């Protein structure tokens, strides 16, 4: 999963401090692997250098992290392009699709249309593999079967997610508890 694009998505929702971005990233996308603070600020630094975000003036207060980051038009455009482009239909895409769905829901977009676009891309790839099976040698057919079964598993996940979008939208609209422990 792309950390820079995910942070851009979180910033598209609202301007945030680094620690808020880390908190939300860990809650929704970390899956037991928290994002180190160092990586958060390094990523924000690169995004700022590339004109995708701007850092506000340091705010008075305790602690080193007193800058609020704001997404720029260039950053928003890059995020939008990523969100709208179906992922290349290869096996094991759930983490990327998951990030797109959660971010789309957070931003109040119709996540279902992104899932539909992904479903169409998957089915197109399945059509190509089915054609390969029908016209190719047995070895090709077996390889195509491997791809077909994995793509089918992705599609089942897409269908299940589509059926649960309302509940998922509610879940991601809940505030995330503050990060406890660790350094900023």
């Amino acid at each position, binding site marked *: 999963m792309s950390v820079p694009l995910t942070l851009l998505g979180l910033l598209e929702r609202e301007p945030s401090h680094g620690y808020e971005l880390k908190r939300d990233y860990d809650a929704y996308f970390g899956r037991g692997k928290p994002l180190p603070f160092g990586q958060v600020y390094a990523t924000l630094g690169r995004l700022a250098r590339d004109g995708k975000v701007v850092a506000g003036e340091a705010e008075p207060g305790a602690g080193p992290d007193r800058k609020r980051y704001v997404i720029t038009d260039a950053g928003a455009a890059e995020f939008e392009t990523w969100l709208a482009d179906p992922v290349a239909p290869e096996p094991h895409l759930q983490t990327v699709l998951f990030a797109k769905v959660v971010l789309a829901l957070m931003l109040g977009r119709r996540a279902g249309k992104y899932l539909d*676009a992904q*479903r169409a891309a998957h089915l197109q790839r399945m*059509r190509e593999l089915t054609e390969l099976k029908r016209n190719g040698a047995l070895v090709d057919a077996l390889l195509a079967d491997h791809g077909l079964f994995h793509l089918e598993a992705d599609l089942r996940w897409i269908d299940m997610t589509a059926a649960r979008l309302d509940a998922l939208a509610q879940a991601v609209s809940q505030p995330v508890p503050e990060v406890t422990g660790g350094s900023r």
Partner: protein
Amino acid sequence: MTEHTGAVSTADRSPAPDPTDCLIEARGVVRSFGQTPALRGASVSVTAGEILAVMGPSGSGKSTLLHCLSGILVPDTGEVWFDGRRIDAMGEAERSALRRDHFGFVFQSGQLVPELTAEENISLPLLLSGARRAAALERARPWFERLGLDGLEQRRSGELSGGQAQRVALARGLVAGPRVLFADEPTGSLDSLAGEMVMNLLTAAVRDQGTTVVLVTHEPRVAAYADREVIVRDGTVNTLAAGRVGS
């Protein structure tokens, strides 16, 4: 991506679709069973010669859509057109003749007539259309070789495997040379290999005959045999288009 949820139209002066573009079309079809709505303004068009997969969750209305497109059910409101003729405005006898003369059907479990042999089952649509028995059996015969059923001509449905029975059902659906084959979960009761064989034979036969197919399935591997797919969701039809959202 186009979402067809257009307003229901029942106007008789509504222009017929151009049959060179589309062979079958549903326009704003609404159909309820008692108080339960199954279709809430479903619109879809099927081009001549294409295989269209109709997908969707259980209870989404995809089988009801197939039944409306094929004239088995009449919509409460909305229109269904076939080759420039409005099916929903026809009487039962006319719809029945249309189904017999132009449509073939394959369902999830073959629904063969158990008292008849395989060759009699395949001949059935021809016999119902008034063909003589000898002529009907003669036309049924090539389908045994074509669908890998050689030697099974005299078997009754209880003596056939699931895959064999479904291939007999497929032959029965195609023997009269229908313009459209309506297939409702045609591999739903089969394992992967038997299902694959049925789909390979189905696609080869319909391409050969130029038959248009409306294929209802919840299985992506079956839908992958189609040229195009639509999704029925909450009684309306979504047409999937590959590519970037909003592009």
